[in-house]
């Protein structure tokens, strides 16, 4: 009976109810959108990094630190004997890194040469075109970001100056065999990809490698001299830290949105208690306990949210569908920051568990803020209520 009464009161409240429902619906739509945005961004970044850089794991030279450019020149070490068959079988992709100066269109700029076997299939990098055809000009692959900063285009020939493993200057000519979209920003920015053997020859560093990308996770279970396994938690540590910061901002936004919505709910409920004091007196006179009267008002508040959920689903559907279908376009210029996952449109995936959790959170707050103004009812005598007296 109370439920039915609450429903009728809400419907009978007309535009006041409608405003509350709309406010709650907008809050729900924004929260679902934001939750989907963060979820989809995280998912995309993890997929991109895994497909383009991490594979099934990394075995990194103990001397190599990707965040310390001091280490780049001299961190390559010899391939361990025990991994030779895995390398030949393609389960491990050896990558050699070397800083270099490149001369695109007659300008000098620093770059990082990344040697990778042209027949690897662990990473999504399309490197089959890197197989050297002649001895004079080495084919290289660059990402769009690198192409933009170096102003290199497909077919351009440029010089590379490099120091070999003894510190001797060497130079070679390279031709851009392709410019591709590399979603993992760290594999694109300042990077020039070329065939591993070609780089080894120029560097006079036969069988040297900076790190291995694993095509099979079982290689993580063993110890190798000069190499250490980089677990996902370590590889993605920076990204997770950035996410944690974003989560704090997200939580503040949610708190603000919920606070604004709850002001509306609280205000409506407080006004309702004041305006409907004679109704409260009548209900009390008819034998309804104060607890049940409070429940009625609380249920009315919860009804707002339930209606808001339906309205939000209807109003938000085109928006949700659009972002799932066409993705969230990263604003121009953000790609240059090298933020993982910010290199291509983010197609929304809606995490139902997280969305239901958010809905339940808002439900709890709505129930609380619907109930709070009704506390006065517990102090009210039916006679005073019928006389229209509320403290």
């Amino acid at each position: 009976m109370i439920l039915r009464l609450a429903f009728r009161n809400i419907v009978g409240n007309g535009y006041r109810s409608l405003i509350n429902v709309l406010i709650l619906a907008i809050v729900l739509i924004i929260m679902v959108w934001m939750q989907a945005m963060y979820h989809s961004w995280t998912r995309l970044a993890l997929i991109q990094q895994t497909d383009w850089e991490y594979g099934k794991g990394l075995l990194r030279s103990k001397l190599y630190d990707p965040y310390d450019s001091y280490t780049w020149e001299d961190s390559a070490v010899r391939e361990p004997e025990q991994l030779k068959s895995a390398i030949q079988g393609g389960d491990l992709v050896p990558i050699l890194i070397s800083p270099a100066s490149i001369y695109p269109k007659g300008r000098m700029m620093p770059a990082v040469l990344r040697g990778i076997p042209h027949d690897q299939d662990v990473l999504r990098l399309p490197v089959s075109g890197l197989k050297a055809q002649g001895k004079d000009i080495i084919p290289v692959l660059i990402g769009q970001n690198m192409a933009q900063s170096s102003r290199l285009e497909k077919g351009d020939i440029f010089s590379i100056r490099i120091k070999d493993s003894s510190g001797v200057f060497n130079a070679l000519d390279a031709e851009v065999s392709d410019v591709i979209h590399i979603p993992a920003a760290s594999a694109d920015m300042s990077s020039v990809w070329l065939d591993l053997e070609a780089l080894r020859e120029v560097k006079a560093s036969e069988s040297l490698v900076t790190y291995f990308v694993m095509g099979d996770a079982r290689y993580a279970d063993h110890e190798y001299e000069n190499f250490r396994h980089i677990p996902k938690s370590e590889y993605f540590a920076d990204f997770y830290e950035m996410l944690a910061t974003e989560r704090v901002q997200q939580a503040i936004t949610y708190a603000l949105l919920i606070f604004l919505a709850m002001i509306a709910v609280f205000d409506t409920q407080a006004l309702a208690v004041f305006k409907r004091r004679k109704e409260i007196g009548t209900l009390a006179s008819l034998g309804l306990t104060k607890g049940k009267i409070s429940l009625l008002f609380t249920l009315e508040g919860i009804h707002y949210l339930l209606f808001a959920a339906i309205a939000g689903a209807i109003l938000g559907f085109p928006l949700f569908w659009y972002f799932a279908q066409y993705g969230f376009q990263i604003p121009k210029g953000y790609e240059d920051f090298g933020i993982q996952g910010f290199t291509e449109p983010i197609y929304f995936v809606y995490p139902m568990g997280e969305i239901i959790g958010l809905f339940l959170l808002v439900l709890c707050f709505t129930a609380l803020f619907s109930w709070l103004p009704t506390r006065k009812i517990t102090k009210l005598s039916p006679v005073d209520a019928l006389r229209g007296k509320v403290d």
Partner: protein
Amino acid sequence: MKHIALLIAILISIPLAATTPSADTILQEMDKNMITNSSKATTRMVVHSRRASRSMEAISYSMGNEKAFTEYLAPPRERGTKMLKLGNDLWIYDPSSDRTIQISGNMLKQSVMGSDLSYEDMMEETSYTESYSAKILESVTYEGREAWILELEATSENVSYQRRKTWVDKERYVPLYEEWYAKSGKLLKTFTASEYQKISGRWQPMKILFKDELKEGKGTEYIIDSLELDIRIPEHIFSRASLRK
């Protein structure tokens, strides 16, 4: 008849051998001129890029090949920028951010103030006799000066430029022009020295043109306005503290 021809040949070659020192001697004499114990110089660096030229003034101190300190005096944008080289380490002080940065790793590949020299090039320490063996290719006249062309081959595997060609002034034993080659044989840099003056008993170039041959442009000129050699330089100049002073 054969004996007479041989005798003539020997007689002709005697004065030649007597006047042409060995390649190693030439390198030693060049080192005597070019390697100084200490120096203080005010210089202008003129970078001739593809579109325009720009000039920077600096005061530099050096102690052998190990220690060097440079402070840029002009233009206003670069004024106060300082560089300190200690052995294999290089620091740069940026007055606008009041920060000292150690130039390392990939940063060493960057150009110094847009010039034809990278920080890596600045770190090069070359003594002709320690790094190279030489052979005389031919005698030529270069820019009006009699010169030998020497081909230099590195004596060890860790010399940055394994092969060089140098045009050496026969009278002064100084390089007039040099070509620095990559291991692959590609010409990387050229060095042209001119306007030599004798300072403290050594011939020193007052004008040097560095040209990165892989880069477009007309190279970078170093013009030495004043130079003092073998002077006493306070040790504190070659300290990191002096960068922020």
